[in-house]
């Protein structure tokens, strides 16, 4: 138990950040019209692809073959999440834009 408390104490800035980010996330989404729920979900989906940075660090520090292979797969999957997520979101939003020009 003490170790857990120590972990929180050592990383207290992170915990402050987490608390603030939770509120910020809620605040940002609260007044979004339901029309945009799908693109928003998709955009948020792309943003959590930031996990790829961890994968890059893993692969960049890997010395043995197993770590290299797993790290390589992780980077590929992370990239899929990021690139696929942003491109799909962009395509969805294109639909809204095209129609705007017509008006």
């Amino acid at each position, binding site marked *: 138990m003490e170790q*857990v408390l120590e*972990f929180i104490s050592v990383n207290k800035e*992170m915990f402050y*950040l*987490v608390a603030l*980010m939770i509120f*910020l*996330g*809620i605040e940002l*989404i609260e007044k979004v019209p*339901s*029309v*945009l729920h*799908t*693109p*928003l*979900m998709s*955009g*948020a*989906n*792309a*943003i*959590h*692809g*930031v*996990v790829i*940075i*961890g*994968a*890059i*660090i*893993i692969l*960049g*520090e890997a010395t043995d073959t*197993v*770590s290299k292979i*797993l*790290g390589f*797969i*992780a980077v*590929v*999957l*992370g*990239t*899929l999440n*990021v690139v*696929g*997520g*942003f*491109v*799909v*979101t*962009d*395509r969805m939003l*294109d*639909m*809204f834009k*095209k*129609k705007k020009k017509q*008006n």
Partner: protein
Amino acid sequence: MSHYILDIIYIIGALSFIFGIKLLGKPESAKRGNFIAAIGMTISIIGTIFLFNSGSAETIVHLQNVPLIFTAILIGTIIGTIMAKRVQMTQMPQMVSFFNGMGGACAALISLVEYHHVSTLPVVDGIPAMETGKAIVIYLGLIIGSISFAGSMLAYLKLDEKIKDKVLPFQQVINVGLMAVILGIAACSIFGWFVIPNALYLLLAISLMYGVLFVMPIGGADMPVVISLLNSFTGVAAAFGGFLYDNKVMLFGGILVGSAGTLLTVLMCKAMNRSLLNVLIGNFGGGANKGEARAITGNIKEITKTDAASLMKYSKKVVIVPGYGLAVAQAQHICHELEQQLEANDVEVKYAIHPVAGRMPGHMNVLLAESNVAYEKLMEMDEINPEFKTTDVVLVVGANDVVNPAAKNDPASPIYGMPILNVEEAATVIVMKRSMKAGYAGIENELFYNDKTRMLFGDAKKSLTELVAELKNV
């Protein structure tokens, strides 16, 4: 020096995510928001590759294997772009689910490799490298990442209709039991109470299984809620990665998506007037309540296309209620043509969009926008409901559950309480449907037996095409 630059890049990256999500919340700035977040992501990735320092301030150690990293990114970019560009707009929800699963798998792999890395480090001054804090982060990252991966892949397969809903006996008991086992093994390993051989792999296997069992019983109509929930799970898994590397941009992005995703999930549940708990254990569409729902008796009345066409042509106001059937039949373009044809005859045409029309909130708007339907013709439920009284003809195209009066007057119905479009208040309702088959929620619709209702059976695209042709003739 280079280390400071990376910190600044990460600050910019984190801010770009906040602005990105903020701008994504407004129709006029959404595209810019997505672009800004993508730029922030790109510079964070490139900065990490070239500037990340795994040594200390004095001895700078840059990342190795840079060619490998670029090869992996190149492969991911090519596959991701092709998949994202090729996917049909109707299949958007499963695509989002698929990409979400990739992120979850990525988080789980990070935990796996990092565990091996940390656990093989030597013990210094009697303190093992695997401190409790780090262990918590690694284990939780693995658990949440695997659940998110397995759950998302199953959601993807279910939406693609490759796998049907299935409820095991004692499903909820099994799920709760599995969760307890996962937490038990994780706690034992983290605090060293009890040595379980290969605990990490055991956790990986059970978490994957849990992900599958968690999504398996949830009905198709509730899938968007689940995808949104799994989306926030992956966000949390990414945030654990942020803890692991003391990396603020990962923490920011992860937590932001985690909290925004959770709220989005709750908002979606609200649109269907159900609680999240109810979605997760309610087995919506699983047939739990089917037997109790009121039996519907009466006759259905069909209408010919010629009659339907002339009825609409001599109306003042027609409201089109599009559903997923319209999307499946790829009939959104011909639907727009019908609208133009009617307007040429001085008929006022509007679209009534239920919040969960299609497969996700806003999905129908995207599909109709794709076929150039004007934005101001798309009416949200609260705006259009008072207008049905003054509407001559309502044309329901491939929608079912969102116009089912059982939601208002049959407490035994599984969709009881969901706000619906009050189409039966209009003078005439024409329902276009492939057959009398029940909707996605698997329940009967008494609207079809209403005196005002006329059924027009057939494929939505074919029927609409013929209606347009008839309109030109009459």
